[in-house]
């Protein structure tokens, strides 16, 4: 008998100095095929050796949100389950947009340089560069995770 492979352990970080979490509020522990542990209690006991200050909760695999980008913003409590730290999600959204716009700005820079060389109109290029610079401006005013999910994909298609 071993623990249920469809279970997950939520490891809630209670130590802000624990750098292993890479900025996430929590981590998800997955039992592997040969876990060989016969009870949730033993599982918790083993993981508490690695995370002595964390809070450990065992949930069903289906309860874990699947949004990978916002994972660092996820929070968990035994009473209300998983939720999203909107402030953190906004920052992740901004980081995503800033990373996405780098190649786009570089491409516009090339277009601009060529336009200068040919004397072509640069109005659209300047406007697009400004749009990319301002792409994160409205993020702070957003209040829901759904708004942020739409926003963060704004540059996915260029």
């Amino acid at each position, binding site marked *: 008998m071993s623990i249920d492979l469809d279970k*997950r352990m939520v*490891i809630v970080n209670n130590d802000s100095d624990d*750098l*292993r*979490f*890479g*900025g*996430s509020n929590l*981590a*998800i*522990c*997955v*039992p*592997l*095929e*040969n*876990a*060989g*542990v016969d009870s949730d209690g033993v599982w918790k006991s*083993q*993981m508490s*050796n*690695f995370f002595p200050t964390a809070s450990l909760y065992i949930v069903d*695999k289906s309860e*874990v*949100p*699947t*949004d*990978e*980008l916002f*994972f*660092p913003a996820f929070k968990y409590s035994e009473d209300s389950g998983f939720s999203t730290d909107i402030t953190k999600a906004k920052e992740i959204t901004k980081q995503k947009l800033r*990373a996405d716009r*780098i190649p786009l700005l570089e491409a516009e820079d090339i277009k601009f340089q060529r336009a200068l060389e040919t004397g072509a109109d640069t109005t659209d290029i300047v406007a697009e560069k400004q749009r990319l610079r301002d792409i994160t401006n409205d993020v702070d005013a957003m209040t829901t995770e759904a708004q942020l999910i739409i926003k963060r994909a704004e540059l996915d298609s260029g």
Partner: protein
Amino acid sequence: MTDSNFTKTFTTDNFTQFVNNTNTIGKEVGGLARLTTTVDSDLVGAINELDSDIGARPHTTLNTNSKTITGAVNEIHTAGNASLVGLTPDSASKLGGFNDSAERTTVGGALNSLSADVRILDSDIGSARAKTTLTTTSKNIVGSINELDAELGDSALDSGLTGMTIRRAINALDSNHDSATTQLRTDIANSFRYQTISGDTGSDTVDSANGSLAIVGDTSLSTTVSGNRVVIDHSVTGATDVNNSGKTYVQDITMDDAGHVTAIGSTAISGLVNDDVAAGAGINAEKIADGSVSNTEFQALNGITGNIQTQLDSANSTQFFLRRLGESPGEQINNNETITFNASGGTSVSRSGAQITYSSTAPSNSTVTISAGTNMSGGGSFTLNGGGGTITLNSSVTNVSQLNNDNNYLSPDASSNISFNSGYGSNAVVYGVRAFGRFNAYNNGITTIHVKNLQYAVYFAQGLYAITFANAMPDTNYAITGVCQGTVSGLHPTMGMSFDNVTARSTSIFYIRTGPTGGANSQGFATNTPFDVAIVR
């Protein structure tokens, strides 16, 4: 002397006459000082005062027949309205408590008499108001009496008590109580009186009113009269209890004429012969002799056809030879030497040409251990077919050469490190992959394709994971090697893996990161990706 004519003075009267007339008038009027009215200075005022006290003219306002005051007062008095002088007696000449004439002369006297009589009635009735002290449902005297009367029932008493009052009737019943009780007892006795007694063989006449029933005992029954009880008891005739728990049995039972057991004899069980034991009785071997031979050992005798000791002696004197085909004289096994095949499961030994095969057939997880002794060198081959189980070579330090052959294919050293050549060019210690796994990371989790000796995976974020060992490493001097799946089909993978430089590995956990590599992405976002990892130690 009074004059019926009023006094007159004439002008012709002399002064003397005038004086006399005046005095006469004064005398007839009387002195004003004698007036008792409030107004006493003149006669008219006094008369008017009296007139005022009398009121309107009596003859016009009096309701009596007489219209004068005196007449009216007398009329009230004499007519009985102001006194009881006119009270009419009843048929018994009773005057309602006013029998004395003095009680009837004045209203005040009559009322006082009435008041005295009312007090007597009050005393007779009780000091408190009847309606507050009556215990009947009705709270007035008539109602209460009627209620009591209803409870007494019809005033007519039954025959025998007719004409009596209730009190006399009760007294009559009380005086007849004893005789009535005696009669009742007689009636009851007659009701329960029996006059016939029946037995098994017939009946006889007996009158319980004056007869008696005798119970006669004999040597088996005794009768005892104790007060109003007859006790019938069985007489003890001498039989005693017998306990057959001591491997004895009841042998004789003696009975008297009445069928009573008077004696029981027991004797010990002895003298059993073969016929007394049933076939297949299943007597345990442990009950034979000193009990040291078990049933299993006893059953092993099945099939023996001759003297066992003789056969053993003969076998012990035999010498065995173990040799390969064509080899002579082979290895001699003397009678003080032993060839042992140790196996916990079913074991079979077979030979095919120059090859001897030992195999374990059951149970499937059994272990076959061969203690080789000291002479397993030479040519040929020694094959262990594990059948999927574990093959353990117990090589002691002093006998490590037993696992060598001329080519040093396999050579454990004194530290239990195994060395082999196998094309390396020389015998050298080999090291192993102690754990490995194939993973896929997505949707904030990790799935496995195949893992060995890895117990848990921890997902911290995209491309940031920890993996724990099922069996811990002896130290942290193990090597982590891993590759990630490429992101573009057909091109060199741009995804790489690194062990985490923030958190140190331990003997039970290590941390890795995966993500894009090369160019501007070298320090970019860590990214989820399928990856393989192996631990070498």
